[in-house]
């Protein structure tokens, strides 16, 4: 898994092909929109009973990212739980798994629209987190500088030689960086959506996830 190095807000960052963001100088790893417990929430609300394996899958991919970067700090950028009850309903095994990942490092839960209050699991709950020139929050704000957020689950689509390719992606413009959703049961919002258009500028770049990170000019994507 090769990281893709780039500069944002005069800071050296790495986009990982899994969709996680690494800040090597501060040994910080950031993931967004884990949506743990999504299948439980859907079943509880009388919807269909989806394969109940997404929490395990998300945690094992998170574990792999942590193993690869050995961070001192992990920031979960909001919507870490599909709702507060889903957070409370995690199995004992999954809770212990999270605690194991937290051991020996600082762990920050940024609040999201799905999980606006603390969950009884280790770590600190915060609305926002600042470090150096970077601000971490769940939803992008107007006029922000050096802002790193999630929420929109951006995905990029492009047609190449008749092939339609669609992947979750990072979106980087001069002032903000939006992370793809890391959770297994997450869909994507087309990066051409007016909401995202409003947040990006002409020089913006999409970093497509996959086996490796592929940078593409934002203006060329659908």
């Amino acid at each position, binding site marked *: 898994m090769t990281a893709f190095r780039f500069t944002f807000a005069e800071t050296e960052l790495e986009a990982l092909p899994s969709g996680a963001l690494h800040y090597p100088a501060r040994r910080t790893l950031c993931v967004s929109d884990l949506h743990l417990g999504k299948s439980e929430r859907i079943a509880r609300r009388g919807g*269909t009973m989806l*394969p109940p*394996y997404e929490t395990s899958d998300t945690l094992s991919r998170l574990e792999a990212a942590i193993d690869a970067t050995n961070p001192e700090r992990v920031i979960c950028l909001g919507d870490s739980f599909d709702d507060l009850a889903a957070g409370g309903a995690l199995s004992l095994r999954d809770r212990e798994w999270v605690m194991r990942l937290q051991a020996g490092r600082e762990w920050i839960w940024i609040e999201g629209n799905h999980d606006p209050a603390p969950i009884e699991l280790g770590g600190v709950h915060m609305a926002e987190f600042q470090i150096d020139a970077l601000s971490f929050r769940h939803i992008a704000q107007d006029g922000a500088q050096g802002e790193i957020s999630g929420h929109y689950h951006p995905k990029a689509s492009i047609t190449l030689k008749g092939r339609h390719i669609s992947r979750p992606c990072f979106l980087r413009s001069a002032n903000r960086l939006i992370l793809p959703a890391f959770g297994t049961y*997450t*869909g994507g919002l087309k990066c051409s959506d007016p909401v995202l258009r409003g947040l990006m500028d002409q020089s913006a770049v999409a970093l497509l996830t996959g086996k490796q990170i592929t940078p593409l000019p934002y*203006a060329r994507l659908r």
Partner: protein
Amino acid sequence: MRALPPILKNWFDTRGWSIHPHQQDMLDRSDAPSLLLIAPTGGGKTLAGFLPTLADLAEGAHDGLHTLYISPLKALASDIRRNLERPIAEMGLPIRVEDRTGDTSATRKRRQRADPPHILLTTPESLALLTSYEDAPRMFAGLKRVIIDEIHALEESKRGDQLMLAVSRLQTLCPDMRRVGLSATVDDPAAIARMLAKHPDPCEVVLADPGPDPDIRILETTEAPPWSGGGGRYAIPAVLEQVKQHKTTLIFHNTRAQAEIFFHHLWLANEDSLPIGIHHGSLSREQRERVEQAMVDGQLRAIVCTGSLDLGIDWGDVDLVIQVGAPKNVKRLVQRIGRANHRYNAPSKALLVPANRFEVVECHAALEAVKDHDLDGETRQRGPKDVLCQHILIRACAGAFDASELMHEIRTVGPYADLTRAEFDDCLDFVATGGYALRAYDKWQRLMQRPDGMWQLRDPRATRQIRMNIGTIMDPETLKVRFKGRGGAPLGEIEEGFAAQLTPGDTFLIGGQIVRYEGLREMTVEVTRRADKEPKIATFNGTKFATSTQLNQRILCMFQRRNWPELPTHTAQWLHLQRDVSRLPEPGRLLIESFPRDARHYTCVYGFAGRNAQQTLGLLLTKRMEELHLAPLGFVATDYATLIWGLEPLRDPAPLFDLHALRDGLDSWLAGNAVMKRTFKSSAIIAGLIDRNHAGQRKSGRQATFSSDILYDTLHRYDPDHLMLRITREEAERGLVDFSRIEEMITRIQGNIDHVTLDRVTPLSAPLFLEHGRTPVEGAGQDRLLADAAQELMAEVGLDAL
């Protein structure tokens, strides 16, 4: 002999009509628990089905529902209603007839449940929905007969399975109910009889006089058909000439897109302004109804149409049927031809228009088959389990049930007759708990077992969601198209995938008009009439039919002739040319051609194994090619060949066809491919694992919904023996994969592979370049494309120094 009641007899007499022998037969045997009528199109099938009902209802008062009529088409239900209402009114019979389809208003539907008519005309899906209501026993009380029209059209489909499951429910509610099936001419009446009857009871069959052989020919044109393509545009002058010479002509096409293009060009050439309309399933209801009405009123000289007009709607005086494009299946051709000349015992007249040179061969083979009365048929498979899961959900909506009773009821349906208790329990467990190895939903089960052993929904509010998902037809996700502006007229629907490719200013064809794409507004495609560009072709996911095995064999044998005096010169020349530059496929050998084109390397494998097996062959071969670093990018399959393209040339095909290597990895690699994911998606929707995407719910910005591919991958990784994956494998084996035919082909050729390497496209492979339904290969080739494009595009916009 059961005599007609005097009032019916008089009505017949005043019209100078007499009852056909098979209609009398149906009347005489109307007490049979199951009765199947096989009659040619135009043989008065529907009347034969309804005569006993009319006789019953004319003779005495009946309270409530007497006869339930089910047709595969909504339009057929309303057409039959009109056809019944007239004689009922003329005879002054006290009979109420109503139809009930997806188009019926909610108020009317509610009233129908409270106060059902004597005769209710409906579709399999609407019936399934009716049986899901708690008041179903009251609504169906006293039901005497159920008539399934065009039952042959439902025989080989999940709609038929769902219908017969619903009928088994009705039979329990009304033990005396008699079943009547009406079928067009088929190869195996006994198979349909087994489907109709309550298993293991017998079913009586009435065979009507098949009538004279049809007058069927290939349309002669001055211009030769093109090398490739499917539209039949070259034949437009000849088709117009035929339209002029006949009263009313039906012009059938195999796909909606082809119908649109043909219609467009037909009008450009229609100098006499003959009134010609278009009809297909993607047009708005208003559009279709207008055309149907014009047809009934005799205002149209021709209709360009698709399978939406396949079934027995009575369009009056059709005296010619033109089939554009190869018919693919002899049985359906015969049924389509029957649409001409709705008078019994007069030969129907039909013309075939091959769309390209390969189809000339196919059409000739089909003509020979019709002359030989060689109808093709497929072996019926066991009842699919996704439909069974949906049936359990529907049953649960109607109220608490006993598992054993339900299982026994299901076993009275032919295709489910050998369902084991373990299989049934698997399905029930899946519906109730999700059926996962990890028992995660004990608290949130969908169905709960009560202390008395009965099963019921945990949350009665779930009925709404279940009812919204009823049905087994997988519609592609479509967007409505209408003219821009307040109250713009609706034109029809296009596939979401096609809409996504459009940029404002692009033009496309719909309903025979060229329209300009202006933008997307609340899930509706807005268009204007400003057509200033060559139109793109809208894609519609109409049913794609596979050429039957019998027809393929006939074609392969035709190739072996030295000359083809029976074929038009152009086609014979084409085959000779193929023989000259390459060779023609032979039985017992396998022809493979490799050639470059547009910086890609192509390989064409002529297996003549039918579309599904050729599709699987494409999957198998691309997998092997990926292992051999040939960077395949995708492939397309037709009934006779598979065309694969990639970034590296194929030099030696022999290692690709090692049967052991192909078979060894079958399960593991099948797991990851796009076809399996597509199969999984349909089955998961039918079985109730995921919801149908209803138009209007798919608002942009819904990042909450995620692809069914993720569910497939997750299940595959964590719960590989889950019922849904077993169903997907079964489905693939029965339809999309067909590995047995590949094995059979490889065994048959015994290593006799003829690999021809050329520097350009060959005559025989050309048509494959225009085939739709390409399957991408998710492999190294795709990553290479992305990396190349990234470099190019980033440099282009000056962002390469990131």
